């Protein structure tokens, strides 16, 4: 089983960190192979930004995502660009408030990640809310693996906050529209 994942948004949202936590969870605590790549380059500054992962049970040779199975969009721009992946059969997840144009669409999963993070008291945790949601919806990695990855990745004093955000995302996933 091999899955290609694309997390997209804009600089400053912690997209790359979310990708890293996901990959780490899969590769170190989830018994899988994982490779993470990301957009680089000056054109990416402050603008669009994406983390791409392949998560697989087999060793991974070609490391780049070509046809993502799972796509997360955390900005309108990202959705404009990657929404089409759905045509290729990808499952899409969006932050409802950040992708106005997707509002009400039934064929993708919605979560108000940023909103929920704000409720939690830290807008910057939206990435973890989204990650929890993503994992809950897709089951690509186990919850414990993700938690372990968070614990070993973020600064000690922010572990609790991030785990909480992850939780919220998982909970949302239970009731998420599929």
């Amino acid at each position, binding site marked *: 089983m091999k899955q290609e994942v694309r997390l997209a948004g804009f*600089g400053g949202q912690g997209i790359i960190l979310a990708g890293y936590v996901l990959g780490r969870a899969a590769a170190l605590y989830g018994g899988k192979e994982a490779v993470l790549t990301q957009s680089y380059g*000056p*054109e990416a*500054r*402050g603008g669009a930004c994406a983390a791409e992962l392949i998560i697989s049970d087999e060793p991974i040779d070609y490391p780049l995502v070509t046809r993502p199975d799972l796509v997360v969009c955390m900005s309108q721009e990202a959705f404009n660009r990657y929404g089409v992946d759905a045509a290729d059969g990808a499952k899409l997840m969006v932050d409802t408030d950040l992708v106005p144009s997707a509002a009400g669409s039934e064929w993708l999963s919605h979560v108000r990640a940023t909103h929920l993070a704000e409720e939690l008291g830290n807008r910057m945790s939206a990435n973890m809310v989204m990650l929890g949601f993503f994992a809950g919806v897709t089951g690509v990695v186990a919850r414990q693996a993700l938690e372990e990855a968070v614990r070993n990745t973020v600064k000690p004093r922010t572990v609790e906050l991030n785990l909480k955000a992850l939780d919220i995302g998982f909970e949302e996933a239970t009731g998420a529209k599929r």
Partner: protein
Amino acid sequence: MSSEIVVTEHPLDGLLRADRLPHIWCPGCGLGSIMACMANAMTDSGLPTQKQVVVSGIGCTGRTAGYLNVDSFHTTHGRAIPFAIGLKLANPELAVTVFSGDGDLFAIGGNHFLHAARRNVDINVVCVNNFNYGMTGGQAGPTTPTGARTTTTPLGNTEPPFNLPYLAAALGAVFVARWTNLHVRQLHRSMLRALAKPGFRFIEVVSPCPVGFGKSNDIGDGLDEMRMYRQECIIDPDVDLSRAAIDMRHGSPIVLGDFVDIERAVFRPGGQEEA
């Protein structure tokens, strides 16, 4: 008389490669402001646009050459000055401005600055000092203030930075100034003065790099750094330049001004008699 009018063109668009906007610079970066001053000064200088040339090295600042709609050269890292010298010597009619970053001009490119200033080559040099290497992601450079954190000085920079106006003056530059991207009016005028003079002219422009220097040093965004300039800068054209180094540790001021404006024989290549 009314509220704002929404338009799609800007009066400076003619001097910009407007088809390349928005530029790649981050929100809150000061480079755009400084380029605006430059574009205004080029327009206001009275020099024919056709004869104005901009040469940049590599870096965020170096991208300026790609946005100004004059003959513009985006060279290699550190080599804008010798490239500009070649241009100028081959065609003395050109008004050549080097527009580049502090790392480009003073880290890898320091030697060319040294010699161009000594020789009093007839070029104008604008150096944007954002206290770090912006393009590569915020490493320390030779202008990083002592104590400042960057991605390569996680425990604080142990080195003293160059005092650029002092260095330029000691080497004999005929015009030396320092401003910030907040002091756009003075900067614009300073650029005009520089454009009007022959010889080696040097303007340092302090500018925020919020995603690099700003972030590492908890300054906040570009606006916050500019607020800091408003707080910390003093204008003193008569300052003893040897005391004008930028030291952020002690809350000592950033001294601004048009510091030097002298006459000195302009470089002419070996053996050529004066016209």
